[in-house]
């Protein structure tokens, strides 16, 4: 059963390696989980899962395997139902000492035996059987320090299955669409594109020169090694079929502007043509030609849109969706120009990947830009794609 947990994790898409699995076994061999399923849940999660976006899948896998396991915690709860709270017992110091001498193994054995004999119903007080307020080793509010404490209703700590069932980390899961926090995390990876602070380095040649001129007295010359900054441009599709995603795009927007300081953005509707809008209402614009001419080519370009349109909008002259708008050059040519101008560009699509093959224009756009889904994972992959070629920029 236990090895099944490993495979269940794998099949739920938690990237567990054998290395980590063995570490977990080591932890179990050291009895770090202390025979408690809740502790086991914590230990297993800490050892096996290394990213909070996988916590939810871990929960699911955990539920799959351990849902029907009857834990001691559960049995104890059943017992508790039969118990009533009574006044606490007063014991002499001598008696307390005697009780302290009992060890946990003995207690557990005794406990199991009692359980089998069905002693636990409605038992109050007494020295031997399970009950409340007694000196016996089982039950709540008792005196025995080695005794089994049964959830006195004060415990804040829930059972593992309950924790897993709650699925608190659902929102961190990577395949549901993003919220701001997650976008910020994903976009913050882009920060590695930003300049690395100037670094002091000994300029050897100039040091030698200066030292020679100084008649052999050492003279240090330092140089600043500054790496080139790279920047981000966001081009977003607004209006029409993107309206349902406008909130999502807005989130991306606010996340981007707070995460990246060298950041420009423009809007378009369905496809790029000779004008790029500088506001969402599409009332002010700059010529795309000028945009392509003026911007440095080391900007990283992210286009966001569903790329779902009539094929004519992409391939025809005057194909733009707005009847008042005439374009001499088909949109697809503009897209190619953007791609050719900038070294790195990606397209983020809020539509799920599985639908991409059914939309003709998406296939066309995918031929031009590498396309990624607008989810945490897709954004991550996209950013990584942008970063991969970062080496080119720094050369």
């Amino acid at each position: 059963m236990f090895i099944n947990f490993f495979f269940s994790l794998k099949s739920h898409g938690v990237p567990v390696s054998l290395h980590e699995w063995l570490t977990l076994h080591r932890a179990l061999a050291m009895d770090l989980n202390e025979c408690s399923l809740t502790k086991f849940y914590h230990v297993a999660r800490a050892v096996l899962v290394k990213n909070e976006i996988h916590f939810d899948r871990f929960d699911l896998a955990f539920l799959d395997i351990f849902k029907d396991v009857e834990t001691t915690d559960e049995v104890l709860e059943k017992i508790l139902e039969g118990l009533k709270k009574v006044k606490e017992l007063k014991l002499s110091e001598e008696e307390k000492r005697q009780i302290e001498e009992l060890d946990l193994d003995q207690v557990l054995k005794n406990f199991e035996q009692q359980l089998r004999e069905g002693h636990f119903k409605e038992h109050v007080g007494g020295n031997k059987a399970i009950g409340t307020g007694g000196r016996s080793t089982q039950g709540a509010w008792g005196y025995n320090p080695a005794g089994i404490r049964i959830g006195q209703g004060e415990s804040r700590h829930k059972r593992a299955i309950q924790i897993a069932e709650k699925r608190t980390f659902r929102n961190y899961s990577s395949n549901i669409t993003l919220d701001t926090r997650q976008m910020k995390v994903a976009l913050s990876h882009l920060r590695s594109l930003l300049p690395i602070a100037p670094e002091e380095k000994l300029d050897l040649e100039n040091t030698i020169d200066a030292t020679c001129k100084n008649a052999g007295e050492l003279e240090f010359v330092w140089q600043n090694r500054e790496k080139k900054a790279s920047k981000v441009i966001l081009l977003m599709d607004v209006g029409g079929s993107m309206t349902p995603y406008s909130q999502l795009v807005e989130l991306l927007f606010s996340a981007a502007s707070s995460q990246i300081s060298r950041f420009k953005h423009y809007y378009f509707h369905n496809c790029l043509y000779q004008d790029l809008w500088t506001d969402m209402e599409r009332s002010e614009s700059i010529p795309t030609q000028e945009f392509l001419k003026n911007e440095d080519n080391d900007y990283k370009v992210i286009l966001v849109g569903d790329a779902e349109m009539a094929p004519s909008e992409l391939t025809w002259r005057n194909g733009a969706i707005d009847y008042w708008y005439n374009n001499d050059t088909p949109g697809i040519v503009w897209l190619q120009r953007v791609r050719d101008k900038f070294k790195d560009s990606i397209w983020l699509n809020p539509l799920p990947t599985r639908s991409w093959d059914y939309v003709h224009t998406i296939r066309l756009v995918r031929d031009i830009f590498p396309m990624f889904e607008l989810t945490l994972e897709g954004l991550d992959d996209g950013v990584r794609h942008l970063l991969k070629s970062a080496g080119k920029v720094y050369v």
Partner: protein
Amino acid sequence: MNYFQGTEDYVLSAALRDSVNVSIALGRPLLIKGEPGTGKTLLAHSIARGVGKQLIIWNIKSTTKARDGLYVYDTVQRLNDSRFGDRDVSDIKQYINLGKLGQAFNSPEQVVLLIDEIDKADIEFPNDLLNELDEMSFYIPETSETIKAIHRPIVIITSNSEKELPDPFLRRCVFHYIEFPDESLMEEIVKVHHPDMEKKLLRECLKKFYWLRQFDMLRKKPSTSELIDWIQALIVGGISPKAVENELPFLGALLKKKEDTDLVTGSDKNHYAYNSSSRTSRNVY
């Protein structure tokens, strides 16, 4: 596994306590992630106090190199010294300065080592430390010396997930994600910092605080540490619970950006306005 039970001034959840103890027992670094201000750095301080060990802090900056943590060979100083001959420049040892990691290994007692904000550094940084953290030893070629940990330090690593950490590095860590505390846990946390606080004021503050955090469009959500500062300000200022309920005094302690303040003050009390407000329409160059 009861190495660490928490300290009086640090409230921790059962899951976090288990993670800490697992990492200590296994001798693996504990990687802590979580929203800013959830007490990642403080945890290391608390662990050090809880287990009664010395704490060594290695703050990572964007320019930090993995080697800096091990040792620095001050060649320039040596070159400089060669000019006056006031130190024996053939003795390289005196120009080797151990970094934080080196100090932690070299310490005669077990220490707690905090590697703070590891994600600030270069993307290759964690990979460069793999072997050192595994073996807890490193070699200094200049003096052909090997520094080996006398006692494996308890290593705590914090990250704000600005950069993805490499998989081989993650495999060697125990991981914990600190969730943002819910209201009841937050109440306890505040009580630790302000034990004599009026109950009514606390309740009002928490209500406002969680209300503020609901704004999705905030550039920077207020965190625990800001809440504690804010409450401090309220207590010092002698603000009554009623005033907190009706207005937001000292908002500057919670919100640090002008856009955020505008957003909150401009919004209606009945939270109707989240998300639809504040669209950024400026270019930042």
